[in-house]
């Protein structure tokens, strides 16, 4: 069939490897499919070009200029590496925002994943109402990223908020946590941890994939619960842990909404919630230093790429894939 449809010259290209007729032959009718492929792909390609690629290149160019939105683009002044120099050597608030972001991610992500895994283990063993619990735990992940919930959160940790009422119940005197530079970021961490439902759902699905026989074999060998957790559950779950870790870390670096709401867009009190993306927003859209903000965006992108690469290169030491199936 492939032979009859394909004329001479094409035949030589596809024909060098003898294709088993039928399906593969039809699938390989490159020409018709090729055109259709690009027709279907055209919106995506246009988006890639106009919304992603060109803006990225423009941003790279702008990062070497002192562009503010007010001067027309053609008259923009090339400043070389001045923005990058300023970022790395002369801008303490930049480094402060890096520290804030790293602290946030390093504390909130592991705690969030630990909560997610812990609750997933509890749920995995329950035999009743799993669906209901799973849904209720997932709800905060749907609501938590909104401005509305950030508003609630800020008020909850304010002087008259619910958290202080709870402390008062135990006879502890609270304070306006969100106005305290030592505690404001912590309240945002708690908000992030509160949204443990999404990774928990993924953990639960992963736990279901662990073959029962492994636990049976382990218990035959006399392994107790803890030993089973360490020797069976953790390794079998490591691809899911890896996935959640990468995803949540990248998300953690991008926290914006809650920090914006807590500080009314300033990163306060005393820059304690100046997350990287908030700093970028202030630089670009409040101070209108769009050249400098572009440089910050590029460093952010490269940093995230490096961190992801580190995750993937260390992954092979601790992520266990069972015999490459499903890939």
């Amino acid at each position, binding site marked *: 069939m492939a032979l009859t449809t394909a004329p001479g010259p094409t035949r030589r290209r596809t024909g060098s490897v003898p294709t088993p007729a039928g*399906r593969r032959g*039809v699938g390989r009718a490159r020409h*018709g499919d090729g055109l*259709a*492929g*690009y027709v279907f*792909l055209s*919106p*995506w390609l*246009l*988006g*890639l070009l106009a*919304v992603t690629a060109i*803006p990225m290149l*423009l*941003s790279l160019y702008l990062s070497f200029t002192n562009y503010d*939105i007010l001067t027309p*683009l053609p008259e923009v002044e090339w400043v070389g590496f001045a923005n990058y120099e300023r970022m790395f050597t002369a801008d303490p608030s930049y480094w402060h925002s890096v520290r804030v972001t790293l602290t946030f991610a390093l504390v909130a992500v592991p705690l969030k994943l630990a909560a997610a895994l812990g609750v997933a283990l509890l749920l*995995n063993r*329950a*035999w009743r109402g799993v669906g209901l619990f799973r*849904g209720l735990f997932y*709800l*905060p992940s*749907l*609501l938590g990223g*909104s*401005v*509305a*919930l950030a*508003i*609630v959160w800020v*008020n909850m940790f304010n002087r*008259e908020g619910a958290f202080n*009422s709870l402390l008062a119940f135990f006879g502890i005197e609270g304070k306006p946590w969100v106005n305290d530079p030592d505690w404001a970021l912590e309240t945002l961490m708690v908000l992030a941890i509160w949204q443990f439902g999404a990774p928990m*759902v993924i953990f639960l699905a992963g736990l279901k994939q*662990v073959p029962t*026989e*492994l*636990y*049976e*074999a382990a*218990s*035959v060998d006399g392994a*107790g*619960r803890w030993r089973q957790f360490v020797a*069976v559950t953790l390794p079998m779950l490591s691809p899911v842990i890896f*996935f959640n870790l990468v995803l949540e870390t990248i998300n953690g670096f*991008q926290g*914006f*909404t809650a920090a914006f*709401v807590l500080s009314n*867009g300033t990163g306060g009190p005393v820059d304690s919630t100046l997350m990287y*993306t908030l700093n*970028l*927003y202030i630089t*670009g859209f409040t101070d209108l230093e769009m050249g400098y903000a572009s440089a910050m965006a*590029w460093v952010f992108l490269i940093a995230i790429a490096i961190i992801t690469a580190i995750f993937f290169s260390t992954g092979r030491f601790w992520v266990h894939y069972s015999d490459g199936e*499903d*890939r």
Partner: protein
Amino acid sequence: MTATATPATAPAATGPRGPRRASGGGQAVRLLILIAIVAVVLYPLFWMIGTSLKSQEEIVNNIGLLPNEFTPGNYVDGWTNFDLSFGRFFLNSAMVSLLTVIGNGVSCLLAAYAFARLRFRLRGVWFAVMIGTLLLPGHVLIVPQYILFRSLGLVGGEWPYLPLLIPQFLATEAFFVFLMVQFMRGIPKELDEAAKIDGANAFGIFRYVILPLSRPALVTTAIFSFIWTWNDFFRQLVFLSDLDDYTVPVALTLFIDSTSQSAVGPMFAMSVLSLLPVFLFFVAFQRMLVEGINTSGLKG
């Protein structure tokens, strides 16, 4: 085999997937712990609703969850707090969210079909690029996108939502493309072949095989698109500048600006209302949402 080796008296030592019914006592304890966690997790939501119904005086003095006297007036005050009715912001948000749903649904489905089913030059390269954009933080592109859209006269223009919507009609939400590709790979290839024998070309197969069978993936995409856009703040904050055009999240921040204590009740009332659509979606589609993150996230 293992069953004979395991002493029947040691049910507690079996793993999570062991006997479905572990000891009753253990289950009861587990259930209590779970209920306690649910209480902690849901407390902020109940507190939010309770506070939205408290009078100004009670917000300061009554530390309990429920108001002594229900004050629905906060909802009226919040609704009319600005020069515009808050309903305007809801309409704006609904319009942006619904158009995003349509844009994502159509454009991502087309791209996913190409990736999942069609063979064409450079497909592998484009697919890798698409996966790459999956991890690209939106914050990185916001400055140049703003500059480009502004130079085209689209920011604060005739219809200020174009900068929010154009990307959504160009399949830039790679997550949904990926989700749909994964879904389509599960549709049996034999159906394509059958249609092909009946004379269908790539467009016919899309129209009569893939499109009807992709409905579950489309529904998942629609729900997530709606919720994410409804909740989105960053892009709407950057691109919307006139009060008339504000969406709900941007309008809510106006309450923070007017820091006076008297606004807390109305602010909470409007916050509750703003979460209501998401909550309703959650109630209606809970199962689908939870399964949605599974198929997209796990299936490698």
